[in-house]
């Protein structure tokens, strides 16, 4: 009988609780270098049994890199050591899982057409002489779901579950498979308030079981509710580790900020003119009641954590996604942006976050990519291909794109040069209102400076820019004003004097949701 293998909460080793907690997982002197970037720098980190250890840091501080090292997806640089239960280990994704380290990523990796039991046991089916023991698997699943005090039953279809319930199933899977470490990366990103509370309850339950939990969240209120210890990472360095009881929100934010401002890009300021673009009470596509004005010559930064609804708002502002209510005004006139075509006719440009998937035609030439958006404005039906190449060549020269000529396929260019092709596409439409969504993501430092200079030149020509950026130095250095977003709402509008890392963070992660 395999009954002895059934998950039994009563047999948990809670008696260890009073002993001095030993490190379940320990990183010593771990660094990770990518070409040109040092993502992690001599990190020391440890996780104890039955502890919730939160990782905090801005976007791009190095949290994801750390997780990927723990899950075996990345190998640390020479000299870094990882100890698991006191043993020095070298992790690969396979080894990490067999040691009992389970990473639960933000995106769901479930099989929607299978039920909960099948999802949990995929690849690890219990079988007897080749026959799958369905009853046995259901029994174990039910036991764990029961233990988690979940209302789910083993036969529910995964695709029918809410994202909160799907996360519960993933945690249940870790318990069924007897994992020792669970890493939760932004688990509550798309959760409702009650789902967050339920998840936090579950985490409190399973840590009783002696499992170590690494929890990453942009929501400080969650962190304070469940953390035993908190580690702050900034620019790939560990800043500090606190016991949660010794900590308050201000201390945490102070640790997360503190970059040397003298290294920031210095841009020329441009006098502001009249209002070019105005949003009044825009709601829809995740944005809630957003109101702002954008002036001629102004760069309006939009800050916030990833998942705060910034890109979704930009889609609405460009007419690419419908709004439920609210009004848009362009140069004082009410604009009805039904689709991107009408936005382009209104001289708007949208440099999207995901260049390769939403901005470029990778297998086409630079010329073809350059002329495509301006087709909206061209009256002629027939046009000479040679004109396309002339236009392409013109912008190659103007923007300093590194390509032989405009016949070159975009797929063969580097990230920075691809971004310049995207810019050429929009400059060619003679746009006046620019939306930049993460304009320098995946672009090396030199090309970044060039893009910044191009943006400043646009402002000097009397254009207006809305810039979404998760890069703190970038948004601080470039913006005249900053909208700080959280959960689809504008939490604060920071004027020039108020712009600081600390202020941005207070509004984007502070405050209470629960």
């Amino acid at each position, binding site marked *: 009988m395999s009954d002895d293998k059934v998950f039994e909460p009563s047999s948990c080793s809670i008696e260890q609780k009073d002993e001095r907690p030993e490190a379940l997982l320990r990183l010593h002197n771990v660094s990770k270098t990518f070409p040109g970037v040092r993502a992690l720098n001599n990190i020391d980190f440890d996780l104890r049994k039955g502890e919730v250890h939160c990782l905090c840091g801005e976007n791009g501080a190095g949290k994801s890199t750390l997780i990927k090292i723990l899950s075996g997806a990345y190998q640390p640089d020479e000299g870094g050591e990882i100890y698991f239960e006191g043993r020095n280990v070298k992790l690969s994704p396979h080894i990490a899982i067999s040691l009992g380290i389970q990473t639960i990523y933000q995106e769901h990796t479930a099989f929607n057409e299978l039920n909960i039991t099948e999802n949990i046991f995929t690849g690890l089916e219990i079988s007897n002489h080749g026959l799958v023991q369905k009853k046995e698997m259901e029994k174990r699943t039910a036991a764990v779901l029961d233990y988690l005090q979940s209302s789910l039953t083993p036969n529910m279809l995964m695709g029918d579950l809410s994202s909160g319930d799907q996360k519960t199933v993933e945690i249940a899977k870790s318990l069924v498979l007897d994992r020792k470490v669970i890493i939760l990366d932004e688990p509550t990103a798309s959760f409702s308030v009650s789902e967050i509370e339920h998840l936090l309850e579950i985490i409190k339950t399973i840590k009783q079981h002696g499992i170590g939990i690494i929890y990453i969240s942009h929501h400080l209120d969650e962190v304070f509710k469940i953390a035993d210890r908190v580690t702050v990472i900034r620019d790939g360095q560990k800043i500090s580790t606190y016991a949660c009881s010794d900590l308050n929100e201000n201390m945490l934010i102070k640790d997360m900020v503190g970059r040397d401002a003298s290294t920031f890009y210095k841009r020329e300021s441009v006098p502001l003119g009249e209002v070019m673009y105005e949003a009044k009470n825009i709601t829809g596509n995740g944005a809630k009641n957003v109101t702002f004005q954008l002036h001629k010559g102004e760069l309006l930064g939009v800050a916030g954590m990833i998942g705060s609804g910034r890109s979704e708002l930009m889609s609405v502002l460009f007419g690419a996604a419908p709004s439920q209510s609210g009004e848009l005004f362009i140069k004082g006139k009410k604009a009805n942006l039904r689709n*991107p075509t009408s936005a382009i006719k209104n001289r708007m440009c949208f440099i999207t976050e995901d260049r390769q*998937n939403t901005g470029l035609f990778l297998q086409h030439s630079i010329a073809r990519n350059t002329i495509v958006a301006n087709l909206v404005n061209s009256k002629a039906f027939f046009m*000479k291909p040679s004109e396309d190449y002339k236009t392409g060549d013109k912008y190659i020269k103007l923007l300093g794109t590194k390509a032989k000529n405009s016949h070159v396929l975009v797929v063969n260019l580097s990230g920075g040069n691809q971004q310049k092709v995207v810019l050429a596409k929009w400059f060619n439409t003679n746009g006046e209102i620019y939306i930049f969504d993460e304009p320098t993501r995946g672009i090396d430092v030199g090309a970044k400076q060039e893009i910044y200079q191009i943006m400043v030149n646009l402002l000097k020509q009397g254009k207006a820019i809305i810039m979404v950026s998760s890069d703190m130095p970038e948004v601080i250095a470039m913006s005249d004003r900053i909208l700080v977003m959280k959960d689809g709402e504008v939490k604060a509008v920071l004027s020039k004097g108020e712009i600081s890392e600390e202020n941005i963070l207070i509004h984007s992660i502070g405050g209470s949701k629960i």
Partner: protein
Amino acid sequence: MNQKEVTVHIAKEKKVSIFKRYENSTVTTILISFVLLIAAVQFVIGAIGGNIALPTIISPNNMFNILMQVSVAGLLAVGMTLVMVTGGIDLSVGMLVSLTTIFMAKCVTDWGMSVPLALILGLMVSVFFETLLGFIISRTKVEPFIITLGGMITFQGIALLLCDSREVRLLKGEFDFLKVNFIQGASFNGLNLIIPPYVIIFIAATAVIWALMKYSKYGRRMYAVGSNPHAAFLAGVDVKNMKMSVYSLNGVLVFLASVALNSRLGVAIISGGQGLEIDAIAAVVIGGVAMSGGKGNAWGALIGAILLGTIGNAMSMLKLPGEWQYMVKGAVIIISVVAGSISAMFSVRSASKRKKA
């Protein structure tokens, strides 16, 4: 990247130039080499038999003959190019040709209509059905493969109902106006040379579609939609209507193919269009159109269609059994597409090398 590196890359690209980019040059090369190979075989066989003569495969009569044979499938291939460049596919064209030919034949034979009226109605039928498919494809997220497969079966049903599962004869040769010879009296080696109007229509339609795709705003947007629909949408292209309109245009080419088929056969029959969609897709794919869209042109489809026709022709020239045709045709399709994918591999490799440099 400095000057020196640039020249190094050019040199590297030259090395792989045969497979570098799969465009019309490649399929043309395959066609010419195939014809020359068969001609050489014929010549050698002739010489062994003590008869030195021009290989029949490259005689003008035979070449015009091939053109006549491939016109119907070629017209469909040109339409298929439009659909596939925008990222779609149309399996229904073969059966729609059967339906349209039967419908037009019924019009003139059984319902006593004049030929021009039958033509107008035939055009309306094929454009209507294609537009309907295009509408469904552009407004839902269902794969065009599935929708047009359903269309194919439906059209077969409608056509069978129309003709009562029998053939419809065009007794008075109502469609023979497309069979007149443009170069009446011209001959070569004592054999008459024939260029009928439908061959001209085939070549003219290819030229028009080619020009539309290359020189118009509409054509540029077509490639954009095929290459990256989401980016095209954000660049102000009406993606849904673009997708629908290429199916409508395809309907026009289906109509032209139907007229050509009616005049060639002088009888409308359900099997007339059977399998033509496969020939059309094969021609288009050989001609360098990517299944994923965004790449290819109508000349490629024309040459692809001629290549397929030439294979069958060469088989009968060499007096090989007809069964061999399918094997050779299949092999040519696979070879040309694999050549395309090898070229893509080379270009990706050279791109990554360039990035490292």
